């Protein structure tokens, strides 16, 4: 048994991973039992709803949220207070609050963690929104692929109802509010607000043109305010601790904190919450602990299929909505994928575009046909058949798709391509002109070569080759027939002497 004295008992809060973080949205995640409403109340839960219903007018609430500077955490960054103020004055017999928990970006799991760890804070935020805009009914649209989140949210709703924190005459104020869960069937486009509402109505999830905006005509034709999970999770804290407290964090135009799902080529993967304005360098080098295996950082992808890649030279830009947009990326919902020198940027662009081609709902032509054409050009480039005019064609198509698509999915789909062309143009040129993939990812541009100096002619590679492409005999260096080679990499993985390289 190892003696305890050999180790330091370092507290979690003192680790580099936690030190630079500030937990507002995630304050209760990992602290309370998400299935116990009492534990949420013990951490001042529902106190904000109580304060709002007993001491504030709806206008006070909207003013407080506006003054805080909170912006939509789903990715768009629209000011939350303004969104509510557009819906509040509309007169209608029924209005709705909708929570968007259709988290679809590859690699993102912020919303899932909030719903699984602290579901009541979302319920409380939605009820406060309902009071502010005059809505009595809410819906949470959550992916069916999140069974634990769904289960805990349902338990939370049931317990809140049991305790009279949802239902009629909450806190004796005369305000009624109740809510239900709606499950999404896994279509990415349903994260778009009009498609999401159409899907809640039981119809095929397709977006519709705006105007009319949801604030005027949303769910079931009624005025509706839709916000993301993380946006609602901020609301109760803003009410309790004040707009000034929230506005004191972050940058001039982006207040508060942002949760990121940190993944990819990084030592410390995890869920991090940082004040707006933190640099990418801080997140990757300090919180994330850097790139594993001594590799070099190449780019960070934010905003998923709608976002872009931030290159190494932009690592010191403070992260906020406007800065990220200015450098051709996007805040997005919070997926942050780190890439190293082994990632091919053309291949990354192809991956994200392939995703949007699959997920395009097909309703409008620019998105349905345009993204497919762009993908074909990228496939042509990675196959080694690209021409320089393809870059212009890609850029032309991208601008056209952005300008003419019906919804956010199509309007942002070209971003991964545009940002990689802008920041990694030389890599595209290497594929097109030199017919080489510098990262060694694109199979058609790759050649496995045996260095005769290093080859010990052991024959391991020949035995590993499934295509019988390797020839040689004991005492003579082996060689690979490029005509027969299927580029599977089996020989490369087998060679003990490092004699096989990718070129």
């Amino acid at each position, binding site marked *: 048994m190892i003696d*305890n004295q050999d*180790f330091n008992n370092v507290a*979690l809060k003192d680790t580099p991973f936690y030190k630079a973080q500030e937990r507002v949205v995630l304050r*209760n995640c*990992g602290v309370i039992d998400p299935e116990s409403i009492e534990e949420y109340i*013990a951490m001042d839960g529902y106190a904000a709803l109580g304060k709002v219903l007993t001491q504030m007018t709806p206008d006070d609430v909207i003013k407080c949220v506006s003054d805080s500077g909170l912006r939509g955490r789903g990715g768009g960054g629209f000011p939350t207070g303004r969104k509510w103020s557009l819906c509040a004055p509309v007169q209608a017999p029924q209005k709705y609050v909708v929570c968007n928990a259709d988290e679809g970006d590859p690699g993102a799991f912020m919303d899932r963690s909030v719903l699984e760890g602290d579901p009541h804070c979302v319920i409380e935020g939605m009820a406060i929104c309902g009071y502010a805009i005059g809505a009595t009914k809410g819906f949470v649209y959550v992916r069916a692929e999140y069974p634990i989140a769904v289960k805990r949210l349902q338990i939370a709703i049931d317990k809140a109802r049991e305790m009279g924190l949802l239902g009629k005459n909450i806190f004796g104020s005369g305000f009624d509010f109740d809510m239900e869960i709606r499950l999404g069937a896994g279509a990415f486009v349903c994260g778009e607000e009009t498609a999401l509402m159409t899907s809640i109505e039981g119809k095929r999830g397709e977006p519709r043109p705006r105007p009319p905006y949801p604030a005027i005509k949303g769910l079931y034709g009624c005025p509706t305010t839709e916000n993301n999970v993380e946006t609602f999770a901020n609301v109760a804290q803003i009410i309790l601790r004040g707009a000034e407290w929230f506005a004191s964090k972050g940058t001039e135009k982006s207040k508060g904190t942002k949760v990121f799902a940190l993944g990819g080529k990084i030592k410390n993967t995890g869920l991090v919450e940082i004040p707006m304005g933190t640099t990418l360098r801080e997140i990757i080098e300090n919180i994330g602990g850097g790139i594993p295996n001594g590799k070099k950082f190449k780019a960070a992808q934010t905003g998923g299929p709608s976002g872009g890649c931030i290159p190494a030279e932009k690592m010191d830009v403070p992260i906020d909505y406007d800065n990220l947009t200015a450098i051709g990326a996007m805040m997005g919902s919070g997926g942050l994928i780190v890439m190293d020198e082994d990632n091919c940027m053309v291949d990354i662009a192809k991956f994200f575009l392939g995703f949007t081609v699959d997920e395009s709902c097909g309703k409008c032509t620019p998105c349905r046909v345009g993204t497919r054409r762009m993908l074909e050009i990228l496939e042509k480039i990675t196959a080694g058949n690209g021409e320089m005019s393809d870059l212009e064609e890609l850029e032309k198509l991208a601008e056209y798709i952005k300008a003419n698509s019906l919804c956010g999915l199509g309007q942002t789909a070209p971003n991964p391509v545009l940002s990689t062309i802008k920041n990694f143009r030389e890599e595209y040129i290497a594929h097109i002109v030199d017919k080489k993939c510098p990262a060694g990812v694109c199979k058609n541009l790759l050649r496995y070569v045996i260095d005769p100096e290093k080859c010990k002619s052991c024959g391991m590679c020949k035995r590993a080759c499934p295509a019988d492409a390797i020839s040689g005999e004991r005492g003579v260096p082996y060689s690979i027939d490029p005509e027969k080679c299927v580029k599977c990499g089996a020989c490369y993985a087998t060679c003990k002497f490092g004699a096989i390289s990718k070129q």
Partner: protein
Amino acid sequence: MKSLEELNAIRDKVRDTVVIPDGSDKIRVVVGLATCGIAAGAKPVFNAIVDEVEKAGLGDKVSVVQTGCIGICQFEPVVEVFEGGKEKTTYVKMTAEKAQRVVEEHLKGGKPVVEYTIGANLN
């Protein structure tokens, strides 16, 4: 819920079980049981702690609860121990066997098993 007073009464009643006050001999153990923790094997760890606590006769003193994602994916399953007036102890990469030792030495014996903590497992 009829009034803020009613809400505050619940808060005051439950507060000490969530945030253990200084001077209390109570211990709160939380196990990260979000999707990520469960996928990493947190359920057997949770069950082992519950069983061992009961076997050791610590039921009155120690409460074991599930919680959400603590945020440190590569260290799952994560177990944290909260004691009054002390910084919490974070145990990482837990197994049912390790949990037995934590119950025996830390919860019962009062001495943290430092080699299982995050400090001893940083790279």
